[in-house]
């Protein structure tokens, strides 16, 4: 009777030590859910969700402070993915949040005065230039977030929609002509 008690106590102490050590040794830094949500988000860093970037939005979603339907660049599919990931109901875009066609910023280099304000606004360092020097966009790095538009004092930045070309063209879902029921 007593020996059984001792065995149980010894076992619980050993297991407690092992578990305690594991909790310290394998401690997870940060919330792993945030990383998963961040991987789904389109990384435009546009702030249209009301957060200063995709990561803060992911953090807000993970904490349950933010809705999943606030990311227009992610599109409808993005909401579906978030809903699947979090096991919540799909929600359509609310209010004026609507996905737009993909675009890249374009600086009219004749008008640009070289104020560097857009460079400071760009979240992905896709604008090259220096004070009193002409600026230009690195189109391949531009996420189309539009954050460079408001700070420009001479309104020389416009958004160019990416037109369909032979490189980005893709096959459409086959259109099936409905078959009339044979009488």
């Amino acid at each position, binding site marked *: 009777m007593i020996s059984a008690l001792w065995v149980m106590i010894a076992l619980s102490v050993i297991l407690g030590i092992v578990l305690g050590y594991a909790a310290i040794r394998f401690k997870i830094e940060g919330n792993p859910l945030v990383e998963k949500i*961040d991987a789904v*988000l*389109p*990384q*435009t*860093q546009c702030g249209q969700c009301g957060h200063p*970037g*995709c*990561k803060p939005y992911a953090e807000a979603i993970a904490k349950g402070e933010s809705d999943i339907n606030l990311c227009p660049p992610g599109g409808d599919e993005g909401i579906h993915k978030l809903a699947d990931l979090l096991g919540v109901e799909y929600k359509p875009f609310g209010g004026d949040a609507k996905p737009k066609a993909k675009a890249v910023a374009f600086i009219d280099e004749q008008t640009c005065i070289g104020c560097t304000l857009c460079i400071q606004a760009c*979240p*992905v*360092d*896709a604008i090259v230039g220096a004070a009193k020097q002409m600026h230009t966009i690195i189109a391949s*790095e531009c*996420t189309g977030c539009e954050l460079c538009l408001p700070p420009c004092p001479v309104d020389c930045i416009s958004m160019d929609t990416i037109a*369909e*070309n*032979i490189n*980005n*063209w*893709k*096959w*459409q*879902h*086959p259109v*099936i*002509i*409905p*078959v009339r029921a044979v009488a």
Partner: protein
Amino acid sequence: MRALHTFHGGVHPSTHKAESTRTPIRQARLPSQLIIPLWQHVGNRSVPIVQVGERVLKGQKIGRPEGKLSSAVHASTSGTVSAIDMQLVAHHSGLPDLCVTLIPDGQDEWITHAGVDVTQTSHAELRHLLRKAGVVGLGGAVFPSDLKTDAHRRQMKTLVINGAECEPYITCDDLLMRERAQDILRGAELLRELLQAEEVLIGIEDNKPEAIAAMQLAVTQAGYRNMEVLCIPTLYPSGGAKQLIRILTGIEVPAGVRSTEMGVQCFNVATAYSAWRALAHGEPVLSRIITVTGNVCEAQNFEVLIGTPLDELIALAGKQADTNRYIMGGPMMGIDLPSGTVSVTKATNCIIASSPKLFPPPAPAMPCIRCIRCADVCPADLQPQDLYWFAKSNNFGKAQEFNLADCIECGACAYVCPSNIPLVQYYRYAKSEIHERSVEKLAADKARERHEYRQFRIEREKTEKAERLAQKERDAAAAKASFEAGLAAAENAQQQSINEAIERAKVQAATTHALNTEALTQEQLAKIAEVDARRAKMRKLAATAGADDEPPKS
């Protein structure tokens, strides 16, 4: 005789090859203009290196390869560049792409060109020459041949030369083998040498007995050892690279693995031919054999300059009035061309003029009844009915799990489908969606990385600035302290020097005495005594007169 192997599935569509093999290859007439696309190969588009209005010679390079995976583009004849702009090209999208338009001057004047002695030239140099000559896979895949001949130091066992030509209607390789077997074999030997392969296997379907005979004769005549022409059963798609490798060698190339990793490489007969022409004669790829067939008066094979507009080519074979569209390639895998103005490219092996009678519009698609005839004929051993279901419902992850990427889009499944479902279109749709997502994912990852680095940089700059500021303050405080200390020290030093001066003066005063009172004459002494007496008298007077009065002047 070597034992042949079989691949899974396959179909037997009616071949329609007899129509275009009655006459030998004919040289196509010089067209009124050549529209030469700068993107005729897998990889990066070539960069134009000519100007509008410039006169170019036949064989002159007009497009420079860009990056590793690219190939050169040449002027097919001599003439003047009239435009470098966007023109409709032979592509599924029906969208325009960058083309060089050339107006031939009729002289067909060659640029200076000469072949090299292939036995004396290094392999690296030969590969470079292939790239410079714009040699790409002419079977239709248009992959740059210089990259395919680099075995990456793998031990190559077999070089497969593909003369199967399994698609209906197409006979360009058939005619090429009949008429130019020797050059094909020289090219094959050259490619074998480049790959350091042990043997060359040439696979030809048994519906081309003339080609087989011509090739076998050429092998015997030239006395190539380790080279064998093999007659394989006619079965679509035995001309697919993986399928032909399977038939000839029994090797099944696994998903996501290149055949070179299994010690096998595969080239089309036309590629072997053009590789030989390019290296031994210095002729870049300027023309190719194209079958013009279908709804035309005289179906036949032409040797056509790259860039010849379709309309002019069809006119040579005699256009029929009821032709409503053109197909580039075969009826199973071909591309519907957007108009007759598009030009032929290195990928064009066949042009089929189509009429509603020849290819009636497809019957409406009916629901899938899961008869799995498609799975029975799939040469890649996939489950087309499942892939169809996943593609239709946009379940791309599942489609990938079912190895959609291994689909070669041969169309055998759609050919046998009793419900007339355009299966290949679904697979292409799913493939392009998957591709787009992977591109977007890469872009998102890059944007995330750049954004995180930017934040890290801003943070770093902030701490560096704070650090600098703190350092500056510390420096200022130290400077002030040292200045004050210096000031005090200077004051001390001054005071000390004053004190020292006083001391010195005292010492001097103590040690020295006036010298002008010594050695006075009697007379002078008397005068001094007189003056002193007068002063004493004056003082006495002054003391009696009052203290405030000024002393009287002497």
